[in-house]
């Protein structure tokens, strides 16, 4: 049978990027443990609207763990207590009746708060724009089977490409480093012959942009890998470091 729980929520509220924020405390009751965390947030918002108050703003879209939009810092962990999930896939069965849950936005100098729990992750787009692609235009490309690719390389590339760009790695990192994100893209492309051609240029350009945008340095704490909802491996960072060093040495 359906189980329900009552909760106390401490939610970060902030009207705008330059406004001072604060925690507000709310109570929500009779939450089904089958509901998702964001459905619980919907219930809270419905409650607030009925009380004629402003609902809590939070980012979300696909609600199936792939768009990378949702971004809540729950009880001190990006995407909350479950492993390998985004916030939208986190379910209330992971919480107990009477729990107090603290909900914050991603905290990082490179991700300024827009409102309440919504942050600006434009920096990630800028890093991709700096070089996170293969420079081919539409049309005039060879047949898809012209270049065989070892299955292992394709699979490893796919694993790195699974990154959803949510920013949990940055939020988890005490230095606010974007190395896991950058290394996932560099690895995805460097592992394929199509992306190999520009690998050196890409690694340098993306790292330079990352540094410019105010992300911190990587000190190999590994927190990013633990919190990554898509289990992107730390070995990608090692690969990025190799790519970057060998590129720099050739300069």
């Amino acid at each position, binding site marked *: 049978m359906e189980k329900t729980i009552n909760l106390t929520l401490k939610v970060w509220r902030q009207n705008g990027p330059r406004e001072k924020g604060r925690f507000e405390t709310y109570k929500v009751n009779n939450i089904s443990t089958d509901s998702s965390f964001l*459905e619980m947030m919907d219930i809270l918002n419905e409650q607030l609207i009925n009380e004629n108050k402003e609902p809590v703003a939070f980012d979300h879209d696909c609600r199936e763990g792939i768009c990378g939009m949702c971004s809540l810092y729950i009880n001190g962990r990006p995407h909350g207590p479950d492993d390998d999930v985004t916030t939208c896939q986190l*379910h209330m069965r992971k919480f107990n009746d009477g729990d107090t849950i603290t909900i914050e936005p991603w905290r990082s100098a490179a991700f300024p708060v827009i409102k309440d729990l919504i942050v600006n992750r*434009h920096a990630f787009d800028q890093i991709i724009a700096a070089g996170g692609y293969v420079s*081919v*235009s539409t049309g005039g490309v060879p*047949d*898809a*089977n012209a270049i065989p690719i070892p299955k292992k390389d394709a699979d490893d590339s796919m694993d790195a*490409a699974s990154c959803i760009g949510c920013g949990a790695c940055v939020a988890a990192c005490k230095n606010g480093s974007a190395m896991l994100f950058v290394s996932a893209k560099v690895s995805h492309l460097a592992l394929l012959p199509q992306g190999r051609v520009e690998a050196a240029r890409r690694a340098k350009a993306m790292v330079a942009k990352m540094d410019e945008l105010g992300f911190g340095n990587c000190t190999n704490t590994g927190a990013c890998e633990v919190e990554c909802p898509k289990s992107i491996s730390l070995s990608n960072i090692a690969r990025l470091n190799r790519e970057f060093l060998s590129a720099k040495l050739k300069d």
Partner: protein
Amino acid sequence: MSKLNARIPEGPLAQKWTNYKDHQKLVNPANKRKLDVIVVGTGLAGASAAASLGEMGFNVKNFTIQDSPRRAHSIAAQGGINAAKNYPNDGDSVFRLFYDTIKGGDYRAREANVYRLAEVSNSIIDQCVAQGVPFAREYGGLLDNRSFGGAQVSRTFYAKGQTGQQLLLGAYQALMRQVNAGTVKMYTRTELVDIVIVDGKARGIIARDLVTGELQRHFGHAVVLATGGYGNTFFLSTNAMGSNGSAAIKAYHKGAMFANPCFAQIHPTCIPVHGEFQSKLTLMSESLRNDGRIWVPKKKEDAEAIRAGKKKPTDLSEEERDYYLERRYPAFGNLVPRDVASRAAKERCDAGYGVGATGLAVYLDFKSAIDRLGEKVIEARYGNLFQMYEKIVDENPYKTPMMIYPAIHYTMGGLWVDYELQTTIPGLFAAGEANFSDHGANRLGASALMQGLADGYFVLPYTIQNYLADDIRTPRMTGNEPEFVEAEKAVKARFEKLMSIKGKRSVDSLHKELGLVMWDFVGMGRNKEGLQHAIQRIAEIKKEFWTNVRIPGDTKGMNIELEKANRLADFIEIGNLMARDALNREESCGGHFREEYQTEEGEALRQDDKFAYVSCWEYKGEDSDPELHKEELIYESVKMVQRNYK
């Protein structure tokens, strides 16, 4: 009929696109720089169009409501993308892909468009591989294929269960490359709120900055809408929460026709509804039907025992299970098209054989595939889907069968476009799910990705030039022209009106009410009485919305409830159009099932003599009924027959 000229090129079917490209007008590089193109949406169609047009040298302005172009809902497509490569040597060809798509669409799509789609499908795979899309490969290093519903060949390319994500990232990366090059300017968290028409042509948009609430005027020599489908009219669907039909409605209000609004696809394999707090439905990829077998208990007592929690599905022996798709459709089995599979599930559940707490679920069972191939192989194929299922339902699908039920997934209907993807408003184009053109009354699996990228990479970049070639002397407008000022004023008035209602009901509560009416009366089974009732109910909901919605906050700054309210007002209008169209179409075809029109075995029964046309609805003002126009569908290369998957 003068308003609807599909402008299909001359010549035999297989030559039409080549003929078109050979004779279309082009724009030289120096002039391309002087021309602005607005692309709204950054999904597969929008991102690929914006990137390609940017590469060609046009000035592109690209808009998305999300924080990044990479978030568009194309990202959630799981299973794959079709192409007629025939790499597996199993008899595929451009014609066969064309034919399967026309047949799968139940003979309600336009032949010439569908043929072109099949024709460019191979180039899409080439393009994506060149971009670094990590498609699944065989040990020999070549690309792997799998099969999907409605086809007897394996023509689906895939990247694990995240094909949409990988294709979108490919297009997104191409797009960001153009942003870096300065040919594309991105506007994130910015929503189209109206289209500006000058001298009968689309010349720009009014957009709303979702962070500041400010309205902006943007000029374009042409405007492309790649804004996706309107499945969220049903509130619960597999679409993302933000997916909406507002851009299509704005176009419709300005004179673009809305085609086949009632053609909505119900996807057979979604995780069933489990409570009223539910915010969306999660799709389980159709690719699962390659290895999963769908069944319900053969005996009603067993179904009742399972619903009451007294029996488990694994307690039932093979003889006690009814693999109803294999029973009814031996030739295609579990791989019948989506509309057929959905209706078959509904039929079993309505007859009392459904499982799950609500009785509205059937089993999708992997036991025989696991026995045959081993858990490792199944994990490699569907690992992420199994994980997703377990996180949501808290059951392990390796051990116990999944429960699934149909849900709204995709809308085949959309803005009417001609062969050039141009709407009835000159200069206004529609691409991807936002247009109606390629899937008829039912879309085959793995064809949405194909169409989105076909439109964006290989169709629009050609056809839009043919239009812009006549515009090289049109100077850029400043946005201060009276048409822009007027459009902005009207938008402002609408938002002020919404804010002034100050009623009692939340946007979501009204949206859920609309969704229930849609699901009950404009869903999988439709009939005259129900549709008439739906039209009346939708009118009531509209009135309730415009007199009793409550939107906290104001128009300045970020106001998510206001965004949602603005979109819901348009969903209500779409719901009305869907119900009207469904009422008009007195036949069953594809995803549109009128209970009055079925064969003795319960299959969809078309009325080709009366309804072999595209229904196109023209807006006639707030207080008038829309006017129906018809584009007759003429088949020269295929013969219309009753679909048979037996």
